[in-house]
């Protein structure tokens, strides 16, 4: 005799999900057309029908243990074909937003997703810290500006204004900090997904290549047979490569990358590539979202705007710093440099572990767990 599980509808969670983008989830009447049109959905994991029901009832425990939302790449075919216009695609997106708040143990994510004021406030706070580091006199902050000296005001001496060692040190600390938060959040997610699943460790180990592959390529996306799937995947892959490259350059190779003169280091070429794809990729995303081109861009949460906007801003200010430096305009260069860091630092420290960017780890982990579950199921026969 099967043990009957208590299922209690949670109205507050439903409200929360609806405000996170699942505004139409209640319209779903479980016909499963969405699951039928989805090429990535499988018999064992029939999303998004199941997630629609879980969201309609606000069943928190089941939602948090479900990798389903991360298995979807939001082509929007389900929303197009939905008989009730219940927008399953956007519901999956809303669930990803919700899950991001649930995996995060600091509670910061929850605050930011629930309120725009909190999100902008925290971003602003980190930005102010960066600005203050440069502008406060020595003794309060790094006092970087004071250190530069009068010589640096006559011609651009970025190293004097922002000594590479100091910035590099700050970069590394920042990377460690965001890495810590992101990894602990992802670990929390992993624990929730795999709790009591009874799958042997060996199965998990054998599937590690999947984790690595998906982390670097998200190649599962190609399986989605929607019209623009390949195009979107390539675009996303390029953007991600630019971003990862730039991150590596800044965190590891800054002493070479932050050049003092017009000499070109090999890192410079990589930097140009990264800047190029970052500008193109994020610009493209912003334009598409502004024009609401396609199901994926029909509904926009603040986090959806901030993600490409901060990227574009970082890239743009980076370019400007370089141009001003070449033009040898010391003060504008320093100001732009400060702005550049005041954009990049909050983006990295806030958006990566607590915001939409966290999907760079959550999605591969979910795909990995799903693959492991399938293996285990197959092994059981």
């Amino acid at each position, binding site marked *: 005799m*099967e*043990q*009957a*599980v*208590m*299922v*209690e*509808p949670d*109205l507050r969670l*439903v*409200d929360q999900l*609806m405000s996170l983008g699942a505004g*139409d989830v*209640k*319209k779903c*009447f*479980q016909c499963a057309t969405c699951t039928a049109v989805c090429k990535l959905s499988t018999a064992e994991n029939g999303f998004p029908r*199941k997630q629609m*029901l*879980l969201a*309609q*009832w606000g*069943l928190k425990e089941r939602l948090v243990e479900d990798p389903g939302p991360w298995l979807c790449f939001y082509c929007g075919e389900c929303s197009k074909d939905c008989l*009730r216009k219940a927008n399953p695609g956007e519901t999956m997106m809303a669930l990803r937003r919700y899950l991001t708040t649930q995996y995060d143990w600091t509670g910061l994510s929850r605050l930011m997703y629930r309120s725009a004021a909190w999100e902008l406030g925290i971003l602003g706070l980190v930005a102010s810290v960066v600005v203050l580091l440069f502008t406060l006199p020595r003794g309060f902050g790094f006092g970087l500006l004071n250190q530069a000296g009068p010589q640096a005001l006559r011609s651009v001496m970025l190293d004097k204004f922002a000594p590479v060692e100091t910035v590099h040190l700050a970069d590394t600390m920042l990377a460690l900090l965001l890495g810590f938060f992101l990894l602990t959040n992802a670990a929390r997610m992993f624990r929730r997904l795999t709790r009591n699943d009874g799958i042997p460790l060996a199965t998990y180990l054998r599937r590690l290549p999947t984790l690595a592959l998906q982390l670097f390529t998200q190649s599962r996306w190609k399986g989605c047979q929607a019209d623009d799937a390949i195009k979107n995947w390539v675009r996303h892959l390029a953007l991600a490569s630019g971003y990862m490259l730039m991150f590596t350059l800044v965190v590891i190779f800054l002493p070479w990358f932050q050049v003092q003169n017009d000499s070109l280091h090999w890192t410079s070429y990589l930097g140009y590539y990264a800047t190029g794809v970052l500008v193109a990729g994020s610009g493209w995303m912003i334009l598409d979202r502004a024009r609401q081109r396609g199901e994926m861009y029909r509904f926009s949460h603040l986090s959806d705007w901030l993600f490409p906007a901060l990227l574009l801003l970082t890239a743009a200010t980076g370019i400007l710093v370089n141009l001003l430096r070449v033009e040898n305009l010391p003060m504008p260069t320093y100001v732009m440099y400060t702005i550049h860091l005041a954009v990049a630092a909050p983006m990295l420290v806030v958006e990566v572990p607590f915001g939409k960017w966290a999907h760079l780890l959550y999605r591969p982990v979910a795909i990995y767990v799903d693959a492991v579950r399938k293996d285990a199921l197959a092994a059981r026969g």
Partner: protein
Amino acid sequence: MSKSVGAYICSGCSIGESLDVERLAGVAREECKVPVCRVHPFLCSEAGLSAIRKDVTEKTVDAVVIAACSPRMKSAAFTFDPRLVVERVNLREHVAWSHAPREEETQRLAEDYLRMGVVKAQKMEPLEPCVAEVSRAILVVGGGTAGIAAALGAADAGYEVVLVEKEAGLGGRLGATRNDFPHGTPHTELPERGLARNITRLAVHPRITAHAGARVARTEGQPGAFEVTIESGGQHFSHRVGAIVMATGWTPYDPARLGQLGYGASPNVITGDQLETMLGAGPPVRPSDGKPAESVAFIQCAGSRDKNHLPYCSAVCCLTTLQQTDLIHRRDPRVKVSILHRDIIVTGQYERYFAEVQNHPATFLLRGEVSSVTRHTGDNLAVEVKNSSLGETIRVPADLVVLATGFVPNAPNGKNGGSSTPAQGASSGDAGQAASEAGAGAKAAGWPVDPGGALHLAYRQGPELPLLKDGFPGSNFICFPYETLRTGIYAAGAVHAPMDASAAEEDGLGAAMKAIQCVEMASRGQAVHPRAGDGSYPSFLLQRCTQCKRCTVECPFGAIDEDEKGTPKFNPTRCRRCGVCMGACPERIISFKNYSVDTIAGMIKAIDVPGEEEEKPRILLFLCENDAYPALDAIAMGRGRYDASVRVIPLRCLGSLNVVWIADALSRGIDGVMLAGCKHGDDYQCHFAKGSEIASRRLENVKETLERLQLEPGRIETIEVSLDEYRRLPAAIDAFAGRIREMGPNPYKGF
């Protein structure tokens, strides 16, 4: 045999190419000795018709045989004075279009049909209309949505209406104030309330007499002349009415029978009706402690779509639940309402309302099978749902559980002296009590009164409308809407089939229309559906009646009553002219002027049966006029072919088959007899409800006789065919003909 028959043969529509028409005319002239026989290339033209009319007016002929197309065609052209005997011989569809042209067998087929037609015309008598003074008033039983619509519809059309309502006020279940479903655009808002406007209009209508708090104590007579006694507050009122609309509505299924759903075990399990009362007074509360319910769980199909309770979908419960959910959320949008269903079934534009109510954040739908309701914590209950769409067995907690109980028609079955369907049992206790009070008055007047009855018909076959399989009175819903098995009494609204108020309103109007047709037809002495306009009726040669009661028992419409000795008392306007009584009578004393045991027997005798040496079998094919005969016509229109050894005789209904015809046919050397009639059983399609079923029962006895005569029982076969299956008819005929050929000739040939 004093009639002089004129035979008119048409050679148009390829009849002339297929047959030797002059040889055919020769058969009429020399063999049948008809005084007039004319061949015309275009008989339905004005020239052809005027030749017939000339012969009739000059009194050269007093019976006309038209050998042309199917009697189902050109009926307007070939309509003459109703007192003139007219017989149509189907040369076009049943001969020329469905058999090989210029073949000897085809020619002989045509000749046989002509002989049969002439004999029938000689034996038919002109119709004498049976017209009596009729009442055109219409009685409406039940003053709910359907009854009010029927009453207003008939009264607005100029007919007097008598309305009887058992409750003190009109309005039925919807009443004056309850919310109706949103049947107007945009179908998403709570609509107008109740029937107040119609009730007011009815109260002041000059042609409507309404009796509230009243019951029908007795109904005697027949369409056009029903004598109805109405009992109200100890007083009796008599009305003479022409037709009756029965709109007695429905009662929710007895929740006491739903013990597994917790009804009775916890006060916090209530029915939809109880919730409705609760919502009229304030927010939903837990009856156990009077606290406002924070969560409500609706259980759909409580008793419906369940073979142990009501096998059908009750049609209104889903919408009622959605509406009550809407009402709860209008009071308090934070009350969690879960709707546990097996499917949400809402029809048409109501889907929009469903979507609207479902879209509320606090509406929670879940598909599954509710298996039990148990105590959870304190006064809180838990509803267990098996096979839920969450993929397992789950339990949903709720402060208040509402059973969306199903739909039981208020249709007494007139047999168990009780209220309603067997499943319902003693549930409509209050209704029963009111009825027994009404019955007391009637008893004082000397009538045995069933307290749960609705019509109290003084009919030999029982006091109420016969019920179909699910306990609804009526007839095949698709083919014969509004019809019941009692002529002139039409079921409308919820008693007719599960339906909502808006459908019931329409249904009431439809039934009113049928009732009006009925009184008008009765005033002309003509039949109603399905032989609408037929002026014939059976006459009984009572001197030879043996009081066997077969006719009074078998009449599908209860048209024949009995006196104390069992002699049939025929009620002409109850009759639908099917001839089932004629087929039933072992003494062969029931006949129509134009359709009798003798006319058909004469047709059988007119068939020219070739001798054994010719090896040409003859097969008699009795076709029901309603589906099988048109089906064979349809085959001819598609130029389908079938064995030319068959001789078709149309019957009004297979139920009018008198087994003597089969004996006649076999003793004449006819090799096989096939009968094609309508489907019978629960989903019957028989136009006379029981005709084909009765025929197959009679044939069982015939087969025993065949065995005694050492004839193969396989020489007689019955098939069921509906018009839409016409394509399989030729194959069935040919297969039967093949089997007859294998059996060899009938040994009685030539005796």
